[in-house]
């Protein structure tokens, strides 16, 4: 194919977009709507995963020191625990602090509050984990530090439940996203197929006057590319804008949504790439059907 053909093909594509305005607009809106839904699915998925991760971070392991633990042992343990990579934060709760907490908890029931003395409650460290799924491993390490199982307090049940729920949720979100992707591909390529179907006679005529398959196909594929690009870009802009609006709103009113967990630029590029790809592939295969003249 001659190199100057590309100019010809582009002019053809742009001209056709203008001339078949109704069809172009229809294909573009279809692409935009589908990509928007897909983008929304990706976003919701990312946000929910972020929230789930947040919830996980609240899991605490408490390790009670034996009553006879010396200050030295405690200091040693503290410094070694602070070195655990799984631990994001560790707090030492002394006997006095434990008692203060106890009293505060039962402040409206003075009988109970005063029922324990300062020597009853043990000192402890409270550990926040980066990932709740590590709690088993951390407990193991703590045991090797000399803690007995009875002195460790970690909500294994809660963590297990959470892991289990998180696993399902992430899995469900992935499945939903993939289903949306498939639906988008189907819907967009359907629209493209219909718009090319409306022009099948033209394709036939082109072939009959001696155009090669590539020569016929290229302007259609470019048209699909431009339609996909416009539709997907519109959608991507809307999705990213809606996302940042949501994050702003959520951060000031609701709960902290980790906005870093979503790479807006990457998301936009992905959505545009998906739209363009479907546009190009859809046009390519739809035209092919009618090239057999």
């Amino acid at each position, binding site marked *: *194919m001659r190199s*100057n053909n590309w100019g*010809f093909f582009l002019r053809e594509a742009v001209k056709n977009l203008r001339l078949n305005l109704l069809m172009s607009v229809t294909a573009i809106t279809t692409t935009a709507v589908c990509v928007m839904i897909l983008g929304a699915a990706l976003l919701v998925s990312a946000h929910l995963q972020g929230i789930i991760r947040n919830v996980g971070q609240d899991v605490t392991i408490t390790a009670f020191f034996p009553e006879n633990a010396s200050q030295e042992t405690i200091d040693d343990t503290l410094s070694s625990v602070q070195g655990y990579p799984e631990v994001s934060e560790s707090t030492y709760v002394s006997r006095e602090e434990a008692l203060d907490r106890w009293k505060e908890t039962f402040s409206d029931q003075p009988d109970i509050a005063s029922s324990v003395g300062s020597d009853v409650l043990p000192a402890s460290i409270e550990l926040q984990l980066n990932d709740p799924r590590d709690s088993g491993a951390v407990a193991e390490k703590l045991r090797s530090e000399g803690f007995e199982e009875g002195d460790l307090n970690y909500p294994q049940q809660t963590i297990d439940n959470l892991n289990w729920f998180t696993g399902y949720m992430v899995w469900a979100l992935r499945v939903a996203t993939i289903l949306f992707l498939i639906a988008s591909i189907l819907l967009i390529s359907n629209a493209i197929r219909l718009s090319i179907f409306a022009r099948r006679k*033209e394709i036939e*005529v*082109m*072939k*009959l*006057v*001696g155009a090669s398959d590539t020569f016929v196909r290229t302007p259609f594929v470019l048209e699909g590319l431009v339609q996909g690009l416009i539709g997907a870009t519109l959608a991507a802009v809307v999705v990213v804008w809606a996302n940042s609006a949501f994050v702003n709103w959520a951060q000031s009113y609701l709960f902290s949504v980790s906005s870093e967990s979503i790479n807006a630029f990457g998301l936009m590029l992905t959505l545009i790439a998906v739209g363009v790809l479907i546009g190009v592939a859809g046009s390519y295969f739809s035209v092919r059907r009618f090239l057999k003249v």
Partner: protein
Amino acid sequence: MIYFNNVTKVYDNDAVALEDVNLGIEAGEFVFLVGASGSGKSTMMRLILKELEPSRGNISVNGVKLGAIPRRYVPKHRRNLGCVFQDYKLLPNKTAAENVAYAMEVTGQKRRAVRTKVPQILDLVGLKDKLNAFPGQLSGGEQQRVSIARAFVSQPPILIADEPTGNLDPETSVGIMQLLHRINHIGTTVLVATHDREMVDVMRKRVVALEAGRVVRDKVRGGYANEV
């Protein structure tokens, strides 16, 4: 140049369009194809274009057996053929000039050549005022002339024209026939299917007559009707 060997064409719905046709057209000939409506003229044209495959027999054009041309070389084959279609087959989204230009562009000709040649050719068929009109903005006869212009703009060695003057007034028809005659004179093989009795009778070229899909007459310097 164009040879039909025992060609039979039966359409899907069992309509027999051509039956055992044998015909040889040499390079540089001018042949009229006549016959009643439905006798198989267009079917012959479509077979030459390889738009259809024959049910039996084989066809060769320009020394190549059509049955042996692989799919991707079909466009090359068609670029050797200028074709005026009975139903014009213009591209509705292109102007008259663009339609004609398209036939040059598929052969990869330079833009400059296209720009100078297209208006000339359209002028030749009397459409110099309609360069930028879309097919929907042209009268029947004007569309037909665009189709004619497209067929010979890239000066193919073979020109096949299916009823090229069906929607033209006698005067314009004569002009077109003279054009075909001139094209034939510079060496192009011309095959014209027509119902224009006057034209055939006046021009006295080779006449092939079809009747219900069979060649019933083949006469050099013949007339439209059978002359005893």
